[in-house]
């Protein structure tokens, strides 16, 4: 009974901290702008099955992609076991899900096997980070804190798997020693159980308790660390895929406020001109964290800094400052910096800093070719170009700031209807002397 009370208190504490985190996040989201409506639920489910559950995009990088997929699928199976542990911990039951019979055997067997597979994958990841120079993990945005964050998360996952295997092995050894029926199937732990051979039953029991409690406490701690780490990804990546934009990558977001102005200009009598009532004039484009859409912010929180985007970015490859990963990381960092002020003083809070310039320079923004390689590559469908283009919109339409070549481009389009300085009357010059061979 005591252990149930302790467990309930631990769980309560976990949820309380998590609830606090979620409330803060909801406040931050409330400062952001609206994005596209979430429709086409059927198509979204299909996309989620393919990209998230099927890990389709991560396989574009076969080696690390395969390891990641194993870790992901393993997590999914092990999650069921963790839910059972919570049920057991609260009710004092033992293996609450064991009544599921064959399915229970499948869950325990795959969970046990994945425990080992994930542990091995994590060790490979750690060794790779330490000993190999992985270009994806480098870049101006990858400060020491990013790497530390990665090592902490990898270590936590490794400990989770080791305690899981320890728990299963101790359970197996305990049941064997007592001649009890073993509930579930444990292909790895049944072998590891021999480590306990010769130990007293009481000692094995204590080991089981240690592993059980440390595993569940690690889960509670990990869950509450994640929202403050790049590994918030563990929670947000699947929802981010579900909420991803379904339009072709070539489509840009239309600015309704501009459409109203242009329609008014072209046809002054139109009633369309009236802006929706009660709407405040919004800044054109994105200058700071509160100008982004909730989806941009969601993207930035889901990003785990894997760097696949920057690795394929033509600007980044050729040594320019732009790194699509940095754009996402900067948004998250800026919201973290400005958020508390906005929570206190409202959306209008001003700390004389902004996402533009204090985090992301104009040089970075103008280096983008809008080729969409980053967005195509992102395993969780983050849309980096959208944010880059919104920041260009701010620069051009609010500040009139653009490189000289682009200013010339704008005036050529305005004056000649073409990006170059040619006359409209010359549009048919290409037809001069045009002939075709025709059989007689």
């Amino acid at each position, binding site marked *: 009974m005591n252990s149930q009370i302790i467990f309930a208190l631990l769980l309560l504490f976990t949820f309380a901290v998590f609830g606090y985190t979620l409330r803060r996040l909801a406040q931050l989201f409330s400062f952001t702008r609206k994005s596209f409506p979430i429709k086409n639920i059927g198509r979204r489910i299909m996309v989620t099955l393919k990209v998230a559950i099927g890990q389709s995009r991560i396989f574009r990088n076969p080696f690390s992609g395969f390891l990641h997929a194993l870790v992901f699928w393993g997590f999914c199976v092990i999650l069921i076991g963790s839910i059972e542990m919570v049920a057991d911990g609260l009710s004092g039951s033992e293996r609450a899900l064991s009544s599921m019979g064959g399915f229970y055997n499948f869950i325990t067997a795959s969970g046990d096997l994945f425990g080992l597979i994930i542990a091995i994958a994590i060790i490979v990841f750690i060794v790779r980070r330490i000993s190999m120079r992985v270009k994806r993990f480098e870049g101006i945005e990858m400060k020491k804190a990013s790497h530390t964050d990665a090592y902490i998360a990898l270590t936590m996952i490794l400990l989770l798997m080791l305690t899981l295997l320890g728990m299963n092995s101790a359970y197996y050894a305990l049941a064997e020693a007592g001649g009890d029926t073993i509930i579930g199937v444990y292909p790895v732990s049944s072998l590891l159980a021999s480590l306990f051979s010769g130990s007293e039953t009481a000692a094995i029991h204590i080991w089981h308790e240690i592993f059980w409690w440390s595993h569940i406490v690690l889960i509670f701690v990990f869950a509450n660390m994640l929202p403050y780490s790049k590994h918030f990804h563990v929670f947000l990546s699947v929802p981010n895929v579900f909420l991803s934009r379904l*339009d*072709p990558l*070539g*489509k*840009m977001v239309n*600015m309704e406020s*501009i*459409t109203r102005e*242009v*329609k008014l*200009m*072209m046809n002054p009598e139109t009633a369309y001109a009236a802006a929706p009532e009660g709407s405040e004039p919004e800044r054109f484009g994105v200058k700071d964290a509160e100008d982004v859409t909730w989806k941009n912010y969601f993207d930035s929180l889901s990003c785990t800094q894997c760097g696949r985007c920057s690795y*394929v970015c*033509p*600007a980044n*490859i*050729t*040594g*320019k*400052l*732009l790194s699509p990963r940095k754009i996402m990381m900067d948004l998250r960092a800026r919201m973290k910096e400005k958020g508390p002020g906005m929570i206190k003083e409202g959306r209008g809070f001003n700390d004389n800093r902004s996402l533009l310039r204090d985090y992301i320079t104009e*040089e970075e923004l*103008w*280096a*983008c*070719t*809008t*080729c*969409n390689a980053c*967005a*195509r590559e992102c395993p969780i469908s983050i849309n980096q170009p959208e944010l880059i283009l919104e920041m*260009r*919109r701010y620069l*051009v*339409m609010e500040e009139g700031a*653009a*490189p000289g*070549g*682009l200013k010339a*481009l*704008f005036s050529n*389009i*305005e004056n000649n*209807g*073409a*990006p170059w300085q*040619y006359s409209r*009357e*010359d*549009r*048919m*010059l*290409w037809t001069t*002397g*045009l*002939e*075709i*061979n*025709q059989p*007689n």
Partner: protein
Amino acid sequence: MERVPIEVPVMANVAAAGKKPEYLFWVGCAGAYDDRYRKVTRAFVKILVHLKVDFAVLGSEETCTGDPARRAGNEMLYQMQAMQNIETFNSYGIKKIITICPHCYNIFKNDYPDLGGRYEIINYLELIEKFIESGQLKLPGVREKGVRITYHDPCYLGRANGIYDTPRKVLGSLSPGLLEMERNRSFALCCGAGGAQMFKEAEKGDKEIFIERTEEALKTGADVIATACPFCMTMITDGIKYKNREENVKNYDIAELVAESLGL
């Protein structure tokens, strides 16, 4: 064989004569003004005439789609251009538009509908493919045997709109055994000109993107680098010059290769 002059039909005249062509052929700014790319426009019009496609162009009524302005952040200028074009299209009752430039294709297809401009947009390669598949167009293959071709995917056909197979099918019926670059299809590297980069100096870096891409194309050992975008063409042609390979490596648009193979 006889050389016959082509009179390119202009929409205003065709409409004045009370006719309504099936397609508008959108020439685009590069198609009308860029010296090198004009040859592509000419080649494609020869194909249209050869296939007896019922089309007309807008001539002096054409104006920039607004794509480079939009991707450079100037939404106001883009929308003004777009609305002007939509008005022109609607005044002629245009339903189907053929483009050669992928940037024009993309903006018509994906961005104009938000402003009320909804048309059937056909990329020239899709049109050619359709005629090949229906058996109306038979390509005799490239004239010089043993010409090896590699294809550079334009971002705005490929990643932006998922058109990867069509250009490969057309090229495949010209010359079997297309050589692929290391990064191809959705992995293809941009030529460096998109997003209005074409019209400005590149930011500081340690290499130009077009050189990186051209080097990759040259590595395939192809004699011809086929492109399907005016900006890619400028970039790849520059890249070949920069690498001093103009003697033995040529950059052609797929339309030129098709017209050439048909002896037009």
